[in-house]
């Protein structure tokens, strides 16, 4: 149970971290209103979301045909494809490639798939210098942390904390003004882009019918990472595919509007292979790593719908639990509602992953904002059922549920326990409420009162009323 405590420790820590609370509140509030404005501005948002879901569902249903098509098209354009069944295979491919090509310095643009396989650690261990170039990623790399949000990795940091990092690591003159802070980061990163031998990126969508990969971003760092160095490696989860180029018309809109509230992201790059003969720009080599890492296992089961996800982060922003505890408390690579679904599936070895689906009030705000309408609450419930089946149950809870079931299936027991509770309340309650209850209900009364059962139940009162008539 020591691992169980770890999750609650992280929650406790997050709730008492004032900077985190400030940062989360500022950022999620802004994200929510931006998204609401951008989605609200569409006259046909519902239709667009239905289309987006249909496009993603089609892609998942035809992965067996679309992935080879994508790979063939990438290769036809002079690119290389690595089929990585897990993180180990993906890491080995990238490290061996970098070694074979004499790479020393690597720049990276944002990629959750690379987080998933702990690529930076592996590259650094193999002796390469790796620099994250997305501003948020750069900040947390300086801080030695992991992303706490799918699209805003440094969402947990306040401007003041970022300033401290830049002063310490980049020699910035102390300031909390944003423009000079960005100038400082830009100057440091510009050098790295020019030095780098290899650029590593993620992929927002792989387009099967053309062999292009799509990367959306707002800073231009992904465009630099994928064009300046002589080698570009893109890492793509195998589910992040669409069948046709024309599908992007829908997908790019719902992604940008759901993620940041933009009509489109500032930069949308469609990359099809390395520079061709005679072209002045672009890398000499292009490698696409198709990462399975547990996805094909999810595909056939009850959680297949989670693979529709386009990683917009809207469910994180909307989630009152995420708003309260932030991303790190979840303990997995992905956080928030979609993280609570994915982490137990993708990182089954994390001992407290099974607790994540329980850290939800099932309010449904996630599903409400999801651009592809993933039934997140239903899958959280499914995870809970799976945890029970696997015996991952708190013994007190198990006992409580057994008592509940016995009570609710036997009217005589139900009536007797109701009477007992009312008797108890007559002696222990004050002013119609309990201020303290015995364990485990003491957890309720720590910060809340609990209503004392009144002298008669509804059904008793109802029966009396009907007798009088």
């Amino acid at each position, binding site marked *: 149970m020591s691992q169980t405590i770890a999750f*609650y420790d992280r*929650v*406790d820590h997050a*709730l008492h971290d004032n900077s985190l609370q400030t940062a989360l509140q500022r950022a999620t509030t802004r994200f929510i209103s931006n998204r609401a404005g951008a989605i609200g501005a569409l006259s046909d948002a519902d239709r667009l979301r239905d289309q987006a879901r249909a496009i993603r569902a089609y892609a998942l249903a035809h992965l067996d045909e679309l992935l080879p098509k994508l790979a063939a098209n990438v290769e036809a354009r002079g690119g290389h494809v690595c089929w990585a069944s897990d993180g180990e295979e993906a890491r080995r491919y990238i490290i061996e490639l970098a070694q074979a090509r004499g790479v020393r310095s690597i720049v990276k643009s944002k990629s959750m798939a690379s987080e998933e396989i702990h690529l930076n650690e592996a590259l650094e261990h193999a002796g390469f210098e790796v620099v994250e170039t997305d501003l948020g990623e750069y900040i947390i790399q300086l801080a030695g942390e992991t992303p706490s949000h799918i699209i805003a990795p440094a969402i947990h940091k306040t401007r003041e904390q970022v300033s401290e990092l830049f002063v310490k690591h980049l020699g910035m003159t102390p300031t909390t003004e944003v423009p000079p802070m960005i100038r400082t980061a830009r100057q440091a990163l510009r050098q790295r882009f020019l030095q780098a031998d290899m650029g590593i990126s993620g992929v927002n969508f792989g387009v099967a019918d053309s062999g292009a990969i799509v990367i959306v971003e707002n800073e231009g760092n992904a465009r630099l990472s994928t064009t300046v160095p002589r080698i570009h490696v893109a890492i793509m989860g195998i589910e992040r595919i669409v069948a046709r180029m024309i599908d992007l018309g829908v997908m790019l809109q719902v992604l940008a509007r759901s993620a940041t509230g933009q009509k489109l992201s500032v930069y949308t790059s469609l990359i099809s292979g390395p520079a061709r003969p005679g072209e002045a720009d672009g890398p000499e080599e292009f490698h696409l790593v198709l990462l399975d890492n547990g996805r094909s296992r999810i595909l056939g089961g009850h959680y297949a719908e989670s693979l529709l996800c386009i990683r917009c982060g809207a469910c994180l922003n909307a989630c*009152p*639990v995420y708003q*309260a*505890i932030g991303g790190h408390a979840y303990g997995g690579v992905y956080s928030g509602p979609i993280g609570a679904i994915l982490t137990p599936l993708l990182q089954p070895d994390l001992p407290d992953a099974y607790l994540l689906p*329980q*850290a*939800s*009030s*099932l*309010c*449904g*705000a996630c599903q*409400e904002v999801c651009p592809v309408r993933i039934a997140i609450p*239903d899958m959280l*419930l499914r*995870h*809970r*059922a*799976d*945890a*029970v089946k696997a015996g991952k*149950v*708190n013994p007190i*809870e198990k006992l409580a*549920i057994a008592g*509940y*079931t016995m*009570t*609710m*299936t036997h*009217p005589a027991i*139900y009536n007797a326990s*109701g009477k007992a*509770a009312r008797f108890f309340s007559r002696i222990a309650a004050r002013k119609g*409420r309990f*201020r303290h209850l015995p364990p*485990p*209900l003491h*957890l*309720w009364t*720590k*910060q*809340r*009162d*609990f*209503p004392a*059962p*009144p002298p*008669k*139940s*509804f*059904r*008793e*009162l*109802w029966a009396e*009323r009907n007798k009088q008539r």
Partner: protein
Amino acid sequence: MTTSHRRAVLFATCIVDQLYPTVGLAAAELLERHGVAVDVPPDLLCCGQMAFNAGFRDDAYAVAGRALEILRGKGDVVLPSGSCAAMIRHLYHELFANTPFAGAAEELSHRTYELSEYLVDVLGVDDTGAHFSGRITYHDACHGLRFLGLGAQARALLNHVQGAEVVPLPGCDQCCGFGGLFAVKQEQISTAMLDRKLAAIESTKADLLVTGDVSCMTQIAGGLSRRNLPTRARHLAEVLANMVDAR
């Protein structure tokens, strides 16, 4: 006032039965006042949501199976709870999928209603003849809001309460943090969510916080009372049936 010859089962839910009997009486009163003969099956106890939400599907199956049996052939079923109504309408499908009761669950889902929904959408009521002199604000309980699409009905009914000033609750669609066992198992997160709800309620300076689910009401009232805040939490049915005293 309509005088149809309807009959409906009032499924008062286990929490209403044990903790909030006046909510059950108010719901019955409202139905009868609008021409519905109310039936309260004595052995109808619980919809099974607590076990289902905790992942104990066999337990939920046993509890919900009883409800399903008792409600068979009974006509309209009305619950003063969006959450329990959503359990029957939305989750019984999954609970009883691939069982001999799938058909019965499907059939029941089509005649199950949350109270405000039944009053407004089925009975066509908007004015229940209620009066309350004071300020009222309304919290949308999540399951009614997102799984049954409710909210407009309660507001329409409240807007007809004579003497009441109905003011919007900032973040009225944000969860109060109850979430069943979540409220105890994740006590810290639950109460952090409650803190935000209480701050929003305080900002309205309302006399009454009204909601359609006694579970949210328990959470919110528990916080209001612990902090000695002046706002009282009441179920919509109590307000509509004139069972709330002015203070």
